């Protein structure tokens, strides 16, 4: 269990950021679900409930999601059910249980860039941007590659477009962590194949995505994707196993998107 020396609920984002930067071990608290499994000693915990960051708003060009929005809110949002063939509700619906998804937050999951994340894999298949208080707004793909730097994730933006997207995952049992997950999306002839929980954080298979857009055969695309994505081993599965499973998931993802097109 982690320990907190102090706990604050700032009323402005700027105040939250100042406290975050004031001391090395000051930390933003999201849902705390992952944090509580560790034993970090936190100076001041910064709790963001008073910053009005819990919402899903449909804007003209983007869907805007506040950092404190819970996974359950993603899952049951009528807006998100309408867009991208419902990939976001689908991607989060297998994470533990309803009671857990009512606690964990979008901002904490995306900012922490967890390798096991179901959400990040799905978001990466869409045109998603993250907004950091200090670092500004940038594409999710860029954020995932950046070196870790203390900051405050305030909102994410997903471009509203007719992107069709499929989410595929493999778990040892329902509600467990994914062994590997895949998202495939298509907008016009622009395809995107993403693999996550490899067990590293999600990545776009660029070459395979391009090949698919140029009309490459599914088998070839699957081979290229699983060559360019680096799979690793951990207690849940070996690299070979993840690679073999990914081949099936990518194929299913492409086939599902093709059916909807």
């Amino acid at each position, binding site marked *: *269990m*982690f*320990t*907190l*020396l*102090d*706990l604050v*609920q700032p009323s402005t984002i700027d105040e939250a950021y100042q406290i975050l930067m004031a001391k090395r071990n000051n930390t933003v*608290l999201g*849902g*705390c*679900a992952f944090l*509580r*499994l560790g034993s970090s000693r*936190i100076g001041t*915990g910064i*709790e963001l*409930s008073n910053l009005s960051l819990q919402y899903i708003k449909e804007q003209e060009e983007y869907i805007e999601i506040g950092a404190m929005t819970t996974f*359950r809110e993603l899952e049951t949002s009528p807006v998100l059910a309408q867009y991208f063939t419902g990939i976001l509700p689908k991607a989060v*619906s297998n994470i*533990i*249980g*309803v*009671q*857990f998804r*009512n*606690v964990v937050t979008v901002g904490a999951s995306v900012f922490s860039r967890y390798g096991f994340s179901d959400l990040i894999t799905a978001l990466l298949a869409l045109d998603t941007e993250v907004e950091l208080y200090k670092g500004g707004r940038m594409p999710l793909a860029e954020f995932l590659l950046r070196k870790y730097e203390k900051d405050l994730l305030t909102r994410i933006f997903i471009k509203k477009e007719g992107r069709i997207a499929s989410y595929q995952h493999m778990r040892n049992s*329902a*509600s467990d962590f994914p062994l590997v997950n895949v998202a495939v999306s298509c907008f016009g002839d622009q395809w995107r194949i993403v693999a996550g929980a490899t067990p590293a954080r999600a990545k776009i298979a660029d070459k395979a995505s391009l090949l698919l857009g140029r009309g490459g055969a599914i088998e070839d695309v699957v081979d290229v994707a699983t060559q360019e994505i680096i799979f690793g081993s951990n207690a849940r599965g070996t690299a070979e196993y993840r690679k073999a499973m990914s081949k099936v998931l990518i194929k299913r993802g492409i086939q599902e998107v093709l059916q909807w097109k």
Partner: protein
Amino acid sequence: MEIKVILNHKPVTLVGEKDEFLADILRNHGRLSIRKGCNTACCGLCTVWLDGKPTLSCNILGIRAAGKEITTIEGIAQEAEEFAQVLVAEGAEQCGFCSPGFIMTVVAMKKELENPNEADIIHYLTGNLCRCTGYMGQLRAVKTYLGVK
């Protein structure tokens, strides 16, 4: 730290440490119906409602409940009794340790889902792992209680 909440329809000031989770704070407040089975956010035993939403109290910092309405099984005694009768009639009740959390989830589902099918019910109850009487008996009871097939 003091946390002002509405607990089972009554304003209450809870007292806890800054890094204390809601389950412990509520138990220290005498709400022993809150069980901690796994304490790793997996078993669903510690389920309470926060502003009407089923929530793992072992997994949420006390401060996040500030100003909110907390409902434990004591706050829905009548509905709990009604469902408990159905559970017993289906032979789906054993030691009772997991019952408060399970019942809180089932009653929340009744309020949230409209005419759910079997897959919807199973999906909603996935977060309640501790169920030694067997999942089938409980599923029968839940369907009877919800009045669905």
